[in-house]
């Protein structure tokens, strides 16, 4: 019986990802890493949670294994399973086992979407035991100091069915990543979409206006990611207002009245 795994080296981030530090998140994350405490990232969609993880992994020079959680994600999807080839079985490590074995960073994106039974493996790994039991193989892995568990979720969705349990939450160092402030966001948009600073500032201005509409029926305001999309389309020659319409207004809502308002905002600024 031989063990084959994905190559861990593939998960090592070679080039420095572009990330501008908002406040003290990097220092805190590094301190958490040093002390073996897992990390919980909260924040609206498109505010840079995943990018921050990439940056952190690059900074720590550890491989980053990202799992996008969905409602059918089971324990064996995380830990691993036996497969058969030519009448022989062999074991394949799941992403979490892979990260534990090699001292990487395992990042569970949108963790509330995962099936509830995954807590069985998350809990012992997230407290001071730092253990991962591979039931099928009768193996108990203890995570090396280099290993880190990180999860993210968006507290904006107020669904009672998708709330994180206290017993899970209280194992993590929680970092809130909101939208960056105007200057920083301008720099990010300008860099990511390669538009000039002036245009980036206007896009950021539109986003700030949409974020002011949260009480008026908009679930969330335009994220930095949407601004980058708008910038990319504009750079490719799409008329600016049209680009914003398709990347920002239409992406945010289906409500006619809100769409009209968003379009008015766009046409005021651009």
């Amino acid at each position, binding site marked *: *019986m031989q063990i084959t795994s994905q190559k861990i080296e593939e998960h090592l981030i070679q080039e420095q990802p572009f990330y501008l530090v*908002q*406040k003290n998140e990097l220092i805190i994350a590094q301190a958490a890493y040093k002390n073996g405490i897992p990390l919980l990232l909260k924040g609206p969609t498109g505010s840079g949670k995943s990018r921050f993880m990439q940056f952190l992994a690059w900074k720590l020079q550890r491989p980053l294994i990202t799992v996008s959680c969905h409602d*059918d994600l089971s324990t*064996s999807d995380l830990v691993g*399973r*036996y*497969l*058969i080839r030519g*009448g*022989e*079985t062999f*074991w394949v490590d799941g992403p979490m086992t892979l990260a534990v074995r090699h001292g990487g960073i395992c990042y569970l994106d949108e963790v509330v979407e995962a099936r509830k039974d995954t807590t069985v493996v998350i809990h012992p790994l997230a407290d001071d035991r730092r253990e991962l039991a591979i039931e*099928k193989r009768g193996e108990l892995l203890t995570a090396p100091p280099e290993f880190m568990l990180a999860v993210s979720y968006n507290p904006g*969705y*107020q*669904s*009672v*069915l998708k709330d994180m349990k206290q017993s899970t939450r209280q194992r993590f160092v929680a970092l809130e990543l*909101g939208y960056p*402030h*105007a*200057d920083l966001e301008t720099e990010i948009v300008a860099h990511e979409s390669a538009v000039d600073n002036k245009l980036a500032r*206007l896009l950021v*201005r539109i986003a*700030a*206006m*949409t974020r*002011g*509409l949260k*009480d*008026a*029926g908009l679930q969330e305001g335009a994220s930095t990611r949407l601004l980058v999309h708008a910038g990319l389309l504009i750079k490719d020659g799409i008329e600016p*207002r049209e680009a914003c319409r398709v990347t920002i207004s239409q992406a945010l809502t289906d409500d006619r*009245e*809100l769409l*009209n*308002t968003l379009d*008015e*905002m*766009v*046409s*005021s*600024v*651009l």
Partner: protein
Amino acid sequence: MKNSLAARLQKVIPVDWLNDWEKEEIFEQLAAYEPLVQQVVIEQLGILWPVNSSLCFDFLSHLPKGLACLSTEQLPAWVKGFLDVYEANGLRAAREYMADVEANFLCRIRGEKGLSLDEVIPRLLLYLRGLSGRRLELEKASSLSTDTNTVFLPRDISAGANKADNLYIYKLLSSFRWAEIERDIYCQQQTVPTVLEEFLRSFEDQPLAAACYHLLQTVHLAEFLRSYLPGLMRDGRALFRHLGQNAERAAAPDCQFTAVRQWLLCRCAEDPLPELSAETAAIIATAAADQSSHVDLLAATTDFYNIVHCQENLILPPPLLFQGELRPREARLTRLARRQEQKQQFIKALAAVLPTMAVAAPAEAEPPAKSAAPALTESGASLSPLRQAANKEAASEASLKEPRYICLDDEQLELPAELHLLARDIEDDLGAVPSFYIASASRMAGSRGQAPAGTLLPQEGPTLQGGLLYDEWDFRRRGFRKNWCRLIVKPVMATKGTFVSTTMAKYRGQILQLKRQFEMMRSQQRFIKRQQDGDDIDLDALTEAYADRRAGLVPSEKLFVRLQRDERDIAALFLVDMSSSTEGWVGTALKESLVLLSEALHSLGDRYAIYGFSGMRRSRSELFHIKDFTEPYGEEIKGRIAAISPMDYTRMGPPIRHCTRILKDIEARVKLLILLTDGKPEDYDDYKGEYAIEDSRHALLEAKAAGIHPFCISIDKEAQVYLGHLFGDINYTFIDDVKKLPLRVPEIYRTLTS
């Protein structure tokens, strides 16, 4: 003649219902009209009588005025117009509508090109709020202005060639009003030493000074908007050019005032700029520069006034289309009112977060408002200063990110977000949060622990006996008052009326859509893997089992996939506020939302119950049974919903505790308690203020501890500050526009449970 008239009238109005002099009056009035007019009027009376008889008399009394400017053919449209108003806003609004035929009716039908504010209010309001990040209001008015809280716009605009142009003009006017607030043309911020009104009063010709100041400010604002909202100003070039051409025709030669207006319009239209005298050019340069301060602009106003004042025969032209009116007095009054309101809110909210132990030492009289804020006040409490940033846009955002602290002697407390915002607004206004605000708050917080002689203390009384008794949380003693409230569950008698059918008709389209959305939630079909038996083989599981067997492990027997229709095991209880404050539109909207919700939930199949609550004093807290979990939705329930009416006060604690008890006995995976309320908890006795909020909060926390998810939907314009505290640990949402409630409630339910 009279007889035939009477016979025709008899057909549409049961004349026996009228007394003699009423009949006489109607005959007299009708007899004076042409037969054709008579015919039309009688037809209209026939339409109006079944709706509302007093509307009929109002119609007759306004008829002479209406006929004076309307043709007979236009009468039916006019009647239809005020019927719409009556149905939307009641009799008084209909009377007002009738009274002003010119503004309300004629202007609108004169041409298709005009645009009324009513048509665009929702869009403009959201636009303004998005732009400002504040809860600005929008109102119809005869003139264009702002008092820095509300933007007043004309009721219709027909200057543009078509609707789109007129919409643009509305947007332009709103943006300029926002810029007036944003750039503080009324000199409200602490950095400006002068009171604008006093400054203007110092001139001999005050209207001229005001006009000069306003024109220079408009130049300043236009430059600001050109850089901040370039798209808006670019779209307006044609309009500005058109205005410029009109102004040129009317301009007096050598008048520097009109020259500046001309310059402004050319600048906005991006046309070649007219020549100006050297002095005026210098003044304009100051006004147009972005970094010019208020002091610079006031100085420039004085210079400009001196130039313009020397000119003979000066007739001030009316303000430009987008310029509106300068209203320093209104702005000042609004500012004072806002300051007072913010002060109260801030003190209250801060007191709620200050710990009781951090009591201020001496409770002396408040120091006068003028005293500037030293770092440490007599209470030992102060607010950490805000970081200064050069750019306002960046500053306001950055300052929100940065946590702020209240320093209490040697302890630091982080400010919650809503207080943070409030503190920022106060600082915008006064420069700093005055120390006595904090002192008052800590004194208020202090009185919590000590419970001094005060009106807040509820009277002690004997423990109640009999009925359903509930404890009440007393935050001062940090304990319950045992068996303090008696709750009476009352049945609601179904009424037979048109309320439900009217609501169903009103929201027909939306109900269909809601039903469709909710049905989609019901039929959540999915394949579940790894089942003992099922529709198909689960290949993953099979492979795994095979592999397990080869590896020498016991293989799993769960090898099938099964199509499962998910059972939504949810029980929701809606608790509706029936206090007297829900009288009128709020109550109607609440009832409408219950109808829509019931329709939607009926198609979804979730179990739900509806109860209303009200009451007076602790001995009579009433819970109205509208629908329990087992009753099916039908005519009876519809009748009960229609019968909901405003009662007494809002003692939230006991009903919440009772509903928690009901929900505890229900078997469901997810239990929801949804509270629909229009405001603060308050009862006739001492159940008010902080005591009431703390008890309601505690009752909600008890529900949460019992495994129930409480959720509050609040309709209130001024509720934000205490809501954060009341529902801090509980989810809540806040609806500022009652009209949106009926559709928002089912939507909230949907997001909550999917």
